[in-house]
C-alpha cells in the first residue's frame, strides 16, 4: 500500500455546489488560485479559507461540485494546498476537472470520517483506500482510462508530453 495523500479532514455536507466552492463573481477579478484561495468556500463558512492548512483534505457527502463546470472550483482547491477531495460522489464536471488538474477525487463512504481527523488516502492492490481513525474505508478505483491523465499530473502535462490523446483499451470497429 502506498500513501497518496495525508492530512486533516475538513468535513463538508452534501451537494456542495461550485458557486459555494468559489463564487462566480470572484473569478471575474482574477483566475490566480493563490488569490482566489482567500475566498474558498466563503458562503459555506466565511472563516474557512483562513483556517486551511497545506495538505488538508476536503471530506464531503454526495454530489460534490455540482452546478457550474467552472474549473476554478478545482484550481482554487489546489491553490489552497489541498491535493485530495474525498466524497460519497462527485458531480461529473467536477470529477473530470479534478482528473484534468490532478486533484485526486476519492469516492467512498465518508460518514465515519470526523471533522479535523488525520486521514490518509492510499493506493492498494484493489484500488484506493481511505484510512481514518484506524479504519480502512474502501474507495472506488479510478477508471483505467483516466489514470494515465492523473499519473501524468493532469491533462496539460499529459498533452504536452503526448501531443494527442493516446488510444484507450476498448473494442475497436
Amino acid at each position, binding site marked *: 500500500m502506498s500513501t497518496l495523500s495525508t492530512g486533516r479532514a475538513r468535513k463538508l455536507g452534501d*451537494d456542495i*455546489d461550485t*458557486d*459555494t466552492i468559489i*463564487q*462566480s*463573481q470572484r*473569478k*471575474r*477579478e*482574477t*483566475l490566480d488560485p493563490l488569490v482566489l484561495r482567500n475566498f474558498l468556500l*466563503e*458562503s459555506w463558512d466565511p472563516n474557512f479559507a483562513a483556517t486551511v492548512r497545506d495538505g488538508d483534505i476536503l471530506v464531503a457527502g*454526495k*454530489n460534490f461540485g*455540482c*452546478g*457550474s*463546470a*467552472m*474549473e*476554478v472550483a*478545482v*484550481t482554487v482547491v489546489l491553490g489552497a494546498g489541498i491535493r485530495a477531495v474525498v466524497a460519497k*460522489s462527485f*458531480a*461529473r*464536471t467536477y470529477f*473530470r*476537472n479534478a482528473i*484534468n*488538474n490532478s486533484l485526486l477525487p476519492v469516492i467512498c463512504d465518508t460518514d465515519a470520517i470526523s471533522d479535523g481527523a488525520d486521514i490518509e488516502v492510499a493506493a492498494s492492490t484493489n484500488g484506493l483506500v481511505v484510512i481514518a481513525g484506524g479504519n480502512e474505508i474502501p474507495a472506488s478505483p479510478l*477508471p*483505467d*482510462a*483516466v489514470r494515465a*491523465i492523473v499519473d501524468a499530473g*493532469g*491533462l*496539460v502535462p499529459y*498533452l*504536452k508530453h503526448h*501531443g*494527442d*490523446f493516446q*488510444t*484507450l483499451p*476498448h*473494442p*475497436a*470497429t
Partner: protein
Amino acid sequence: MGQGRTIAEKILAAKSGTEARAGDTVICTVDAALGTDASGPMAIDYFRQMGGDAVKDPARLVFALDHYAPPPTQKAAGHLKTVREFCAAQNIAVHEIGEGIGHQLILETGRARPGALVVGADSHAVTYGALNCFGTGIGSSDLAGAMLTSKVWLRIPETIRVNLEGCLSPGVSAKDAALALIGELGADGAAYKALEFSDVGAAELSMDDRFVLANMSMECGAKAGLLDADAKTDAYLSGRTIEAYAPVSADIDAVYAETINLDLSNLAPQLAEPHHVDNVVGIEAGLGQVVDMVYLGTCTGGRASDFHDALRVLEAAGGTAPGVNLVITPASREVHMALLADGTLAGFAEMGAIIQTPGCGSCCGTCGSVVADGMTVISTANRNFKGRMGNPNAEIWLASPASCAMAAARGVIADPREVLS
C-alpha cells in the same frame, strides 16, 4: 438483456470510431466546441502550456462573450480582450457582446444538429440535446485539449429513459415539468447518466419546451438530455444549417438504467425553494412569499415564447406590483429582435421592466443587476445556489416564466392559473 443501444451509445460510439458501450471511456472527435469569456481565458492559458501553437481545426471552435456582457469591471473587460485576441490570431469565430448566450447561439447557428457531438466549456451545453445532438459540459482544460486535438475523453453514460405522457395544461410549462423531474430524481439522480426524453409527450412539445427540458437535465446531474429528432427539429434547423444530418434514435431493445414516467397532464406549477434546485415543491407551498426582484432570462427561460408567456400573465394580472424590480434579459439578439418586432419588449418597458443586454445577465452574478442582502428573487433560471446571483445573503426561487410574471404582478408568489382561463 437486450443488445440494442441508446442515443448516447450510438452517437459516442460513432464519434470515437468504436463499438464501445455505456460504461466505456472513449476518445471522441467533437463536431464543435464552445468557449466563453468565463471559461476561455484559462483554456487559452492551458492551450499554450500544452505547447499549443495553432489550434487543430478553428472551424470546430467558437467563443461567446456572454458571461461579462457588458463587462462590469476592468479585469472582466481584460478577459474579453484575451479571448478576442486569441480568436483573431487563430481564425476562430467569436460571438460578440450582445449577440447572446453561447448555448443559445450554438442552437441558432445550426452547430447543434442531430447525431453531432458538441461540447461546451459551460455546463448548460446539455441544452443541445433538444436537437438530438450529444451536448455536454466540459472544463477549461478539456477545451484546451479540444483546441489542440479536436478531441475529448468521455465516459459513455448509462441512460435513464423519461417517458413523457399527456399534454401540459394552460399555465403549466416545460419548466414546471423539468422542476418536477428534478424534484423526483434529486440533484444527483442522473449523475454520470444521460436522460432520454421519449414518447408521445415529447413529440407534443415545442422546440422551446424541449430546450428547457434538455437544459435543466444538468440540474439532476445528467451528462446529456437527449430527445429524438422529428419534423419540429427539421423546421427549427431549416435556414440555420446547410449541413446534412442523420437523426439518431434508440433501438427498441436499448438497455436503460431506469425508466421514469412523467405525466404532464396532471402537473401543477412548480417551485424550487432556496438554495437547491431539487428543493422542489408545488406552487401552493410558496403562495404569499414576498419577492423583491423578478428575473426573466437565461439559457433556460430567455426565449421568445418565455417572454410571451410572461407578458400575457403580467397584462392579465394588471401589471407589475409597486416595489418589485422586474429585470429581463433576452437569451440572444435573435430573441431580442423578435420581441422588438412583435411589440413584446415595448410591453415589458411599459410594465417598468429593466431590459438588459442579451447574454448570461444576472443569472450567475457575473454582470447585470445584483441583489442586496436579504432580498428575495424569483427567476426563470436553472440554478438557485447560495450566492449564485452575486450575493450569498439573498434567496432565489426558481419557477416558470408564467409563475415569475405572476409574482411580479402580485409582489408575492401566486398561481398564474388564476389569470389564465
